[in-house]
C-alpha cells in the first residue's frame, strides 16, 4: 500500500483508514485523508476499507510552530 507516496508493507485484508491512522500513531487532530484522490471525512475513517493497491494520502496540516 502506498501511504504518502511511500511503500508500506502492513497491508492486510479489512484494514481501514482508521486502522492505518492508529498503526502510524497519527495522533495529530488536523488530518486530511484522501484515498485514490477521494477526500475521506473524519466520520468515515473507520468504515473506509483499504485495498492493496490504494494510494493513501494522510496529510498533517501543521505548518506552524
Amino acid at each position, binding site marked *: 500500500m502506498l501511504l*504518502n*507516496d*511511500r511503500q508500506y508493507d502492513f497491508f492486510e485484508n479489512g484494514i481501514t483508514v482508521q486502522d492505518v491512522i492508529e498503526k502510524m*500513531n497519527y*495522533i*495529530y*487532530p*488536523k488530518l*486530511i485523508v484522501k484515498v485514490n484522490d477521494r*477526500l475521506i471525512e473524519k466520520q468515515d475513517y473507520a468504515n473506509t476499507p483499504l485495498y492493496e493497491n490504494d494510494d493513501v*494520502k*494522510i*496529510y*498533517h*496540516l*501543521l*505548518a*506552524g*510552530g
Partner: protein
Amino acid sequence: MICIKNIKPYEQIEQEEIERLKAAHVLRARLQYEKKPLFRGYTDKLLYVDLADSKIRIDDIPGQVKEKFIGGKGYCLRYLWDAVTPETRWNSPENAIVMSAGPIGGITQYPGAGKTLVCTISPTTDIPIDSNVGGYFGPFLKFSGFDALELIGKADKDVIIFIDGNKGTISIEEAPLEAGDAHILCEQLTLMYSDDEADRKNVAVVTAGSAADHVNISMLNFSFYDPNRKVVRLKQAGRGGIGRVFRDKRIRALVCKFSGIKADLNKPHNMSILNKTGLKFHREMHDLDGKQNNMRKIGTANIIEVMDAYDLLPTHNFKFGSHKDIDKIKSTVFIEKYLTQGAPDGCWYGCSMACAKAADHFLLKSGPYKGQRVCVDGPEYENAAGLGSNCGVMDAEAILELNFYCDTYGIDTISYGTCTAFAMECYENGILNKERTGGLELTFGNIEADFELIHQMGRGEGFGVIVGMGVKKMKEYFIKKFGADPAFLNDIGMEQKGLEYSEYLSKESLAQQGGYGLTNKGPQHDEAWLIFMDQVNNQIPTFEDKAEALHYFPMFRTWFGLMGLCKLPWNDIVPADNSKTAEPAKVPEHVQNYLDVYEAVTGTKITVDEMIKQSERVYNFQRIFNIRMGKGLRVNDASPYRAMGPVTEEEYLSREERYDKQLRELQGLDPEKMTLREKMDSTRRYRYEQYNRMTDAVYKRRGWTQNGVPTPEKLKELEMELPELLEVVNQVLSN
C-alpha cells in the same frame, strides 16, 4: 480544572511603596508634542530617543521608507541599518533598539493584531535580531502617535521613558529604586502611572529583568494588565538577547499610557470589510477550535505530546525525539492541574484565539520568591520542550517554575533550555564536572541544579553567567579553558549564527534543517516550520519542492512581522473546508482574509504575489544587512550536525532500524556488512551532501548566488536598488 471564576485576585503592592519609588524619580527631559492622528494605519512619525544626552525627537518617516519597508520589522531594520556601522557591536552606544507595530497593528476586529516587532544588533549573533511580541506597548505607542520608536545611546543611570499618549508628553526619568525583576517592576509601574484601578489596563510596560545585567540570552517583557485576575501579565520578545542591549543602555523600563481603545483608531479605509472578516474568523474559532488545536484551552502547548509521538520533541539536548515520561508533561497535565480555563486570554484586544494561558497562584519552591504564589504566563510549547524534555526535566511544576523565573529575570526560555541542555550534555561527557561548575551537578533531569543555575543568572553569579553567554560563547570557553574537543562541541552545540535552536528535532526533515539553517537571524522556527509537510506528509520530496517551500513560507511569514500580526491565527485553526482547497498547507482562505484586512486598513488592494514581494524586499534587505555585518554568506548557513543527524553512537543505536533502512534505500549500502562507525560516517556524509544540494536549490529560488548573496538583478526585480545595498552586494561579489 481551575476556572477563572474561582480565581482570587492577586494582592497589590501598597500605595505607599509606589509613592516612595516615585518620589525618587528625577526628571531628565520632557517633550510636549502634538499628536498626529492616524490615517489608514499610519502616523508616519518616528519617536527617537538618545539616552546619552536625554534627547527626544520626533521625525517624519519618508514616503520611500513606507513604500519599501511597510512597517513593523521593515521599519525596525531600516532604522537600525541607518544607526549602525559594520563595526557596531551589541554594546556600542550607536546600537539601536527599534520597535514598530506595523500598519495593521492595533486593530481589534481581526485576531492577533497587537504585535510589536523589535530589532537590535544581537549580543549572541552580532547581526540584526528580530523578535515579535504581544502585550499592549506597540499598539499604545502607535495610538500615541508613533509608527516606530528608536532608542540609541546609553544613559549613565537607570531611567524610565514614559510616553503619555493622551496628554502628548514624553519624559525621561531617573528611576533609582524600582525592582529589577519584571513581575514586580511591571506591577510597580502599572500602579505608578495609572490613575486608579480602572486605568491600569491603559498602562503598558516594557522591561527586561535582573539577569539582563549579566547574561546575553536575555529578553524583553511586554506587559498588559489583566483585569480579570487583577495582575500584570508578561509576553516576551525572546530571541537574541535584546534585553541585554536594553539594560546596557541603562533603560529600566519603557512605559506607554493610552486610554480610549476603540475599533476605528487606525482610521481604516473600510470598516465594514474589517468587521466582516473579523466576524467570520471569530465564528470559525468558536465552532472549530475544540475539534482542532484547543488553542483556547492550552495555547501552543497542545502539541507537546504530538511532537513526542512523531519523534520530534527534543530530549537531552536534541539527541532524541521522544521521552518515556512524556505523560508527566503532556498538555492535559497542564490543562487539568495548572492552567486557568475560561479566561479571555488574548494578548491584545479582540484576539478570540486567546492562547495566552496562565497558571494562577502557582506556589514557588525556590529562589528569592520561594513560598510566594504567583501568576505564571505559559507554558508555551517551546517552554515545555526547552525547559522540560530537552533538559530531561519531565516535571510540570519544575517547568512552570523555570518558566516563571525566566520571565521575571528576563531570560529567553528557548535559549535557556538549549544552553542548559548543552551544558548538561557536556557534564555527562566529562567536559564539565562539579569543580568546573562550582558545585552544580548538571546531569539531565537534575531539577535542583537547574533551579540553582537560573538563580545564578538572576544574581549574576557563578556558572550561571557562563551558561548565560549562550551556546556559541560557551563552546569557545570550554575549548579554551577545559581543552574540550572543538569538533564534538560544534556537533552538539545547538546554535547557528550564535542563536540557540528553538525546540524541534529537525534530523529527519531536510526541509526543516533548511527552515532553521537558511534563515536570516538564526535557527528560530518563525520563518518556516516544514517538518510535517516534509517528513510525515512527503509533500515536498525534491530539492526544488523544498526550495519552493523555503521561499514561500519564510516570505509569507515575514509579512506578519511587517504588519504587527501574530502568526498563530493563520494556521492554528483552519476553515472547515480547508482540506478541499488546492493548497491546504497555505490555508488560502486565511491568506485572503489578510489581503482583505490589509486593504480594509490601508486602502491598498494587493495580491498574494505583491504580498510576497513586500516581504521579499525586507527579507533581502536583512540578508544584505547580515553581509554588511560580516555574516550572511553560505558559510554562515552551515548547521551543527546534531540538527542533521545522529552525532553519537547512542543516538544512532536508539533509531538503528531507521538509519540502517536509510542506508539501504537511499544509499544502496548493506548495513549488515558495515561497522557502526562506518554506518554513522556514511549517514553523515549523505546528510551533509543533501543539505548542500538543498542549499543550492534554495539560493537559486531566492535569487541569490551560490554564496548566498542577493544579486543586483534580484534587487532590480524587487525595486530595491538602493545604493547602500548595491555597495555591499557589489563589494562581496567582486571579492
